[in-house]
């Protein structure tokens, strides 16, 4: 047994290692996704593939890849066959524990006294992984082969020496290989920093003390989670929701979950969810597990450390070949949309059991807008990509936040001035959508509206919307939030409704695209909304007097 003080100091040291590795990777990478959106994670993993510590700013979905990657590495290579200085890479969701191809995963064994003591791992979203479209994230593809290069678990370094044949193969298959090379080396540098620091730590404490501490850190987190889960009355909880569509013609895609809670554990069974779809929103089962873990942690104990102890209390199952447990060669680039819906389902299922912790459905999407064209000033092709936030759900004690990223995503917007300096575009307005939050004792947050038009040229708009048909639901009598939509404003000012996942819509300089993201559901009976809150809704102008009269007749 390690005493709680030494354990805290070791735990602190491990988090310090992952945080430093995280910063080192961010600092030396090329991809905007890593540098500025921080779409990367670092972790320390034990000999059995269990997650011991993860960098503080790591993304929830990356928990799945760390776990998946190590399972794949250990299944393929015996620990006794590993050498000091080996580094493994992989990205494939179907055979190597990834969740989508742009996330490139790396793992390095850390040797102490001639034996593997642990692994350091990292994940980074590369700006391109090859495939049919630049960025390796586009819709319209039906198979993973089209989405990009699939990498099983392979050694990129052997005994500290780069395996050049492999590296040449990897780089030949991506766009702008020089930049990707920089990203690979950033990940390698991050691994090596983690390795060095972990060895220093082993020198100070001895590897026995450290491996014992690993066990205890995970055990303590697991016990903490078990206690937290103990606050949910044991029982079985179900919820069903639907995705709008997959972008390739499949609509009304059910996501169904049955949660069985008891003995400090939660079993999540997704039987009844849709078969996998042609479009690219399919998820692997480890992604579903990480998403359920996010939802449970967020509901019960947001500050619990991110380690195996969180995952260990959750069992996830789904029939193979479903949208939450897809089989090869399903396309997976936009799996984040299904993740968002899984979060809504888990919260929806548990809401009756833990009403004060639950929140109404948030905008439930990862609304994406892409405008591209040829800049008339430079004759160069440009691609402007952005993900937009929306409403956050009403809560037991307060309104949902207006215009914000929700659940598994938390990326910044691009400043209006940056957009206009960088691209031949004009942002006409950017604001909250009146009346878009569902009424309730505590109302849902408002969606966002952004109006953009091309300047001096013809541009092409593509987008991905969700909860454009199935509104974010209210909770305990709260009303639904308003769904989102994409529209094109015509020269005469009239509006044409676009698809939910429009591809290649032409925009002339006298047209504009009007993007509206979903609001969020309200919480509790609107009749119980305080007069001062209704007054605030009116004064702020966030709600029209018509809406307020209708939603709160007595108010």
């Amino acid at each position, binding site marked *: 047994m390690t005493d709680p003080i030494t354990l805290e100091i070791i735990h602190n040291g491990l988090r310090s290692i992952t945080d*430093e590795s995280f910063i080192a990777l961010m600092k*030396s990478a090329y991809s905007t996704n890593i540098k500025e959106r921080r779409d990367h994670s670092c972790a320390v993993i034990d000999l059995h593939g269990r997650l011991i510590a993860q960098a503080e700013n790591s993304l929830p979905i990356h928990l799945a890849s760390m776990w998946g990657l190590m399972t794949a590495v250990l299944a393929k290579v015996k620990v006794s066959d590993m050498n000091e200085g080996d580094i493994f890479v992989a990205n494939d969701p179907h055979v190597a524990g990834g969740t989508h191809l742009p996330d490139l995963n790396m793992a390095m064994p850390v040797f102490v006294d001639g034996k593997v003591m642990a692994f350091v791992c990292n994940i980074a979203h590369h700006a391109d992984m090859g495939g049919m479209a630049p960025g390796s994230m586009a819709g319209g593809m039906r198979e993973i082969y089209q989405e990009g290069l699939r990498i099983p678990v392979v050694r990129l370094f052997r005994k500290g020496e780069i395996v050049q044949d492999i590296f040449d193969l990897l780089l030949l298959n991506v766009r702008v290989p020089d930049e990707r090379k920089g990203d690979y080396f950033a990940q390698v540098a991050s691994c090596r920093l983690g390795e060095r620091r972990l060895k220093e730590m082993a020198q100070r404490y001895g590897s026995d003390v450290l491996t014992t501490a690993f066990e205890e850190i995970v055990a303590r987190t697991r016990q903490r989670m078990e206690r937290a889960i103990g606050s949910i009355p044991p029982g079985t909880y179900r919820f069903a929701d639907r995705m709008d569509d997959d972008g390739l013609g499949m609509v009304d895609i059910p996501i169904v979950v049955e949660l069985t809670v008891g003995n400090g554990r939660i079993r999540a069974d997704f039987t009844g969810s849709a078969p996998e779809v042609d479009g690219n929103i399919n998820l692997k089962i480890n992604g579903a597990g990480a998403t359920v873990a996010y939802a449970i942690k967020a509901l019960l104990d947001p500050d619990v450390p991110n380690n195996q102890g969180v995952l260990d209390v959750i069992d996830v199952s789904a029939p193979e070949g479903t949208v939450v447990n897809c089989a090869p060669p399903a396309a997976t680039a936009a799996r984040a949309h299904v993740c968002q819906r899984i979060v809504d389902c888990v919260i929806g299922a548990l809401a009756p059991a833990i009403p004060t912790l639950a929140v109404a459905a948030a905008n439930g999407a990862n609304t994406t807008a892409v405008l591209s064209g040829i800049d008339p000033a430079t004759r160069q092709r440009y691609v402007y990509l952005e993900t937009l936030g929306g409403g956050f759900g009403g809560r037991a004690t307060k309104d949902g936040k*207006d215009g914000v990223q929700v659940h598994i995503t938390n990326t910044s917007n691009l*400043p209006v001035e940056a957009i206009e300096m960088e691209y031949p575009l004009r942002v006409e307005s950017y604001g*909250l959508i009146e009346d878009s939050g569902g009424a309730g004792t505590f109302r849902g947050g408002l969606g966002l509206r952004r109006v953009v038009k091309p300047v001096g040229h013809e541009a092409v708009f593509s987008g991905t919307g969700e909860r454009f048909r199935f509104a974010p639901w209210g909770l305990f009598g709260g009303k639904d939030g308003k769904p989102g939509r994409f529209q094109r404003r015509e020269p005469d000012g009239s509006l044409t409704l676009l698809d939910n996942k429009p591809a290649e819509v032409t925009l002339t300089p006298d047209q504009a695209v009007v993007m509206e993201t979903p609001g969020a559901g309200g919480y509790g009976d609107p009749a119980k909304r305080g007069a001062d809150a209704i007054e605030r809704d009116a004064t702020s102008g966030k709600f029209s007097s018509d809406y307020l009269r209708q939603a709160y007749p007595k108010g």
Partner: protein
Amino acid sequence: MSWFIGVDVGGTFTDFHCLNELTGEAFVHKAPSTPDNPARAIVNGVEAVAERLKIDYAQLRRLAHGTTVATNALIQRRGGKVALVTTKGFRDLLEIGRQIRPHMYSLQEDHPEPLVPRHWRFEVAERMTAQGTAETPLDEKDLSKTAEAIKAAKVDAVAVGFLFSFLNPEHERKAAEALAKALPGVHISRSSEVQPEFREYERFSTTVLNAYLQPVLARYLADLGDQVGKLSDKIQIGINQSSGGLMSIGRSHRFPVRTALSGPAAGAVGAIHVAKLSDRPNVVTLDMGGTSADVALIRDYATDTAHDRQVGGFPVRLPMIDINTIGAGGGSIAWFAPDGLLKVGPTSAGAVPGPACYGLGGREAAVTDANLVLGRLSQRGLLDGKVALDEAASRKALQPIADRLGFSVERTAHGILAIVVANMVRAIRTVSVERGHDPRGYALMPFGGAGPLHATDVARSLGMKEILVPPAPGILCAQGLVVSDLKEDFVRTRRTPVTAAEAPAMTKVIAELSAEADRWLDAEGVPSGDRVATLTLDMRYVGQNFELPVKLPSAALPDAKQLARLFAAVHELSYGYANLDAPIEVINFRLTAGARRPEAKAPAASKAPAAAPTPVGRRPVYFRWEAADDTPVYRRDALLPGHRLQGPAVIEQLDATTLLYPGDSLVVDAAGSLLVEVQP
């Protein structure tokens, strides 16, 4: 004879550092703060100092002042009522911000509500383009309607923020003038003046904060000016800015937001001063007080400048000394997390009730309690016994934790200190890695009341070999104020490719900045021979979204090739790689202007030290938890240049206690600082 006085107003104490400009003679003073009216403690203190030094008020030349009035007003939300006037279509921008949540996993935490409620955010038809041309003219009718509405709202201040005003301030200027005319007595801040920089949300947020603070600062500064003026009309008052330079009262009225982080900035300036006197160009500072610790990296006697900080939950974009703050201080409380691990901080017992040993009703064990039971702090108390410490109370507070751990109180206390040290070590590592530096090549300079108590453990964990304890660690901020310069930052955002063809355009921007700086220097009465200026370009590779500041070797613009090389060097240091062939662009041109001060010189080494210093007493001190070492206690003022000590030892002075561990040794250098050699 002329004296400079630095005054640092803290939550509990107001510190004074007085320096005779000619003789280098220095004097320090500490007085209780008067939070209801901070000016009172300042004036009382100045009177006390003048009496002690037997000087006439006319001999006081400059009063440099670091103030927390703005910071506190913000934290306590006591600023003015503010309206915002902005470009049509964008009144929600201030509320949306960057559309992110403060905590990835929390379903309950939100960023704070904006300081301007939505119904006081007014839109006016106007539009500038990314080229700085007016696409839609300013709608005067909209504007006068808005002025009427604002008048009816009875606000104290108005912020004006239009898109692309950093490129062309014409519309903002016109609007601000019209509003000033229509709204007599109302403070007006416009974004093109507060911080004319690219990225609208951060610029508007900074401008709104400025407007919010204007009414509070205006009242305070008027009061301070009056009261100090009564003593003597010769005293020049300088207000410290977050960038580490002084500004006049007049400018502070207009730009109060620039004082929001002035306290820690003064500490860094003081640390640079001390580092110079001791010939230590590379230093990590650790300013540990009651509630938090500030960490900064000094390289070649200079700190980095940061531009983005959160203050009171809001983003501020202004030049600031790059300082990282963590919740680790003498008042940090020990507690058990739900997983049973022992944690220390960030919650602090503050000054009231304070740690249990203060006897003011604090029941929870804090870092100071741990130091007391281990004999590291004297039972006589702080400030030469003015603040008595009750060891029994500390033991009582620590006992439940010790019981739960099954440890002795001493082992528990030792563990608490180890945890608070681990927290600081983690912060220093993060800051160093982020800046591309290895702390092992640096000396550690602890200051603040609690810094020197914990420095050895921090240094040892980081592999740092030397600790530099300043002569007066508890009032280094006030000392930094005395040695601060008049300083002002000027900026222009002009996105310009780094090519030979663009050189004339760049030279023109720099000339504009220089002219602006000269106007300011004229107004401040700085003689031309004393003027200094540095030019910094914020540059990036074309396609990147964030810039890196590149300090130029002189105020003249180097050619494009040289600029590319300078940028590559900075990129290499920050990100670990550089590409000499990739196209580069400048986003911001920054000019920092100021008045030169005479270089710091160490006081002439006084006579060789007499006999070895004699301890004033001995007490058992637990350096290890297992057993106490019988340890000599020295008075700091008995340690003279040239003296050497071998650990264990405790060195006490008015405002700080320094620990010398068994096996470590120290020497007092010519400047009176303690240089501790740390055994690995």
